[in-house]
């Protein structure tokens, strides 16, 4: 469905006094998102995961690599015809409060893209009303109650469902969920995650799930892959459960150690790990990018750059010279 090969993106800014500042947001990311599949990208703020989502939806350009959608390499497609490819990839934004126009009713919010889509496909616009109701039912809302309402009359969870329904108006094949549940009340999060999982199984929609909250990545359904991204580079990837249960890269281990422990129901993992320092995206090094924060870094790590691969008899791919599985994730006690 989507194949990304070695995508890079570098931002250069020039301040009047500070000189040129270069931020490598993505340093060669590749992945394959199959039809109906799910790939999650996790990492802390500033790791490039949002840039990746923007590139895939055509909201941001990339300076190196290839993006293949439905078997077509996008750089071979003229600019004006790319829209039809990006139509298949829709974004669900983080903040359902600002993603909807407050002056328009749900009816209007869904109606416009539906009419546009009807013109494209040559369908009659008369079907628009039925289709809007159908989509709302699909996302678990009651059409008659919701259609005449303005966004402020809905709860956060309901608003996010409207955002998802709007993304579905143009018949997408891929949904990109960038922190889609982090602004929503904890009690409503599983409902949204369950809906995304449903869309995968019922409509065969592929899901690219971007988040800093590793626990939510477990809820997007079977066959999911987890990619851990650090400073624009994937440093560990594999089946979601494998990476969570036996992570081998110290950065992944730090991320997993940071997940709150439900004391009384869970016990902290015995090998919990904390990074040595805060993220500084300006440091340049020929070695491992994580080495300055890594408790286990040695001379080789600061001198040589590890590449993603399967070494050390580990099931998942990783970019670490010293891959050691550690028990960092909380353990259930009841």
């Amino acid at each position, binding site marked *: 469905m989507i194949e990304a090969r070695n995508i890079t993106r570098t931002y250069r800014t020039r301040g009047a006094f500070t000189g040129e500042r270069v931020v490598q947001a993505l340093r060669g990311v590749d992945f394959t998102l199959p039809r109906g599949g799910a790939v999650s990208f996790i990492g*802390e*703020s500033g790791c490039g995961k949002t840039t990746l989502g923007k590139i895939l939806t055509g909201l941001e350009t990339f300076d190196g690599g290839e993006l293949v959608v439905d078997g077509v390499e996008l750089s071979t497609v003229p600019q004006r015809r790319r829209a039809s490819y990006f139509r298949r990839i829709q974004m669900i934004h983080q903040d359902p409060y600002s993603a909807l126009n407050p002056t328009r009713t749900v009816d209007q919010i869904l109606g416009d893209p539906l009419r546009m889509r009807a013109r494209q496909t040559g369908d009659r616009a008369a079907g628009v009303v039925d289709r809007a109701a159908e989509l709302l039912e699909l996302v678990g809302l009651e059409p008659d109650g919701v259609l005449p309402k303005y966004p402020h009359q809905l*709860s*956060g*969870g*309901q608003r996010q469902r409207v955002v998802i329904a709007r993304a579905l108006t143009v018949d997408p094949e891929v949904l990109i969920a960038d922190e889609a549940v982090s602004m929503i*009340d*904890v*009690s*409503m*999060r*599983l*409902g*949204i*995650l*369950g809906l995304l999982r449903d869309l995968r199984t019922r409509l065969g929609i592929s899901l690219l799930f971007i988040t*800093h*909250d*590793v*626990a*939510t990545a*477990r*809820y997007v359904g079977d066959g999911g892959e987890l990619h851990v991204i650090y400073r624009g580079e994937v440093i560990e990837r594999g089946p979601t459960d494998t990476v*969570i249960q036996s992570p081998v890269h110290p950065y992944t281990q*730090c*991320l*997993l*150690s*940071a*997940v*709150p*422990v*439900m*004391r*009384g*129901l*869970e016990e902290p993992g015995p090998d919990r790990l*904390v*990074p040595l320092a*805060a*993220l500084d995206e300006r440091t340049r090094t020929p070695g491992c990018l994580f080495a300055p924060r890594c408790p286990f870094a040695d001379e080789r790590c600061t001198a040589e750059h590890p590449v993603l691969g399967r070494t050390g008899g580990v099931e998942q791919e990783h970019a670490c010279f010293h891959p050691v599985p550690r028990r960092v*994730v*909380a*353990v*259930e006690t*009841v």
Partner: protein
Amino acid sequence: MTDTVQLTAERAEAAAEVSVRDLTVLYRTDQGELPAVAHADIDLPTGTITGLVGESGSGKSTLALSLMNAIPAPGRISSGSIQVNGVGDVTRLEGRALRRVRGRALGYVFQASQNSLNPLKTVGKQLLDLGRAHDVQDMRGLVRRARELADEMGMDGARVLDSYQHELSGGMRQRVGIVLALVLNARVLILDEPTTALDMLSQAAVLEIVRKVHRQEGLTTLVVTHDMGVVSEIADRLAVMYGGRIVEDGPATEVLQRPAHPYTRALIGATARITGDTDTARALPGRPPDLTTVPRTGCVFRERCPLAMDVCAETEPQLLTWAPDRRRACHADPATTAATGEGA
């Protein structure tokens, strides 16, 4: 774990740093004055971290703000008392006396404290403003204390004071908020959603710091959050709010292991966790009520409750002690609420 529980129980019997009794906060709406907090009774035992959990609109932030007697119009505290150790009843204070208490007795770290710093002034200048507003004589001492606190939280104190807020990361701004809340030696620290908008690593760091400062400074701490994971990570005691009522409280691990209110049970079941079966977890049905949609009679949770009975529509359950150091407001048998299965 038994030790902790016992310790907490002993502390609860000891003096409470803050005692809230029968607190009702009303907000004026076009449907008349409606309660955002109704008849709340809660103690913050000296030296403990209490977590106050609930969905948006449950009244948890209103309750936290009323501890400072800082309810903004059109809201007001209509009845009840809030006794703070060494201060007296905060609800009776006003003007100068009230301003003194805010900061010197009670430190408050606001929701999105990332955005509550003045973008035009360095943190140090804001610290001096704070000192002047509180008639601090020894400004040097104030600065020394701020640097000390900042160092304690793993920051370079001098650098932080010279920084503007945009030069600090989200996690660091949160820490600065805590420094400013404690610099006047407040004994009670109130944190409203301290980790919202932070990523996992910063969240873990901030929680660790709250734990450390709490212990080193011998504070009494209240953490207000909607995230069950956050409170269960750091709180000794847990209070759950719904529709303006405290519906359950007790020692944190006990409440998590044996929730006695169907709402608490559902909230735990709805939390995305790193362990356990993902299929048994489910979101709460329905939506959280707001001021105008809270049921006026009977139990506030009954419309979303899997155990609702006839009596729930007629009589509002009182928050009563049902086991040592455990209270709940529910008509159902405690055995039933504990046995309804995961995520019911």
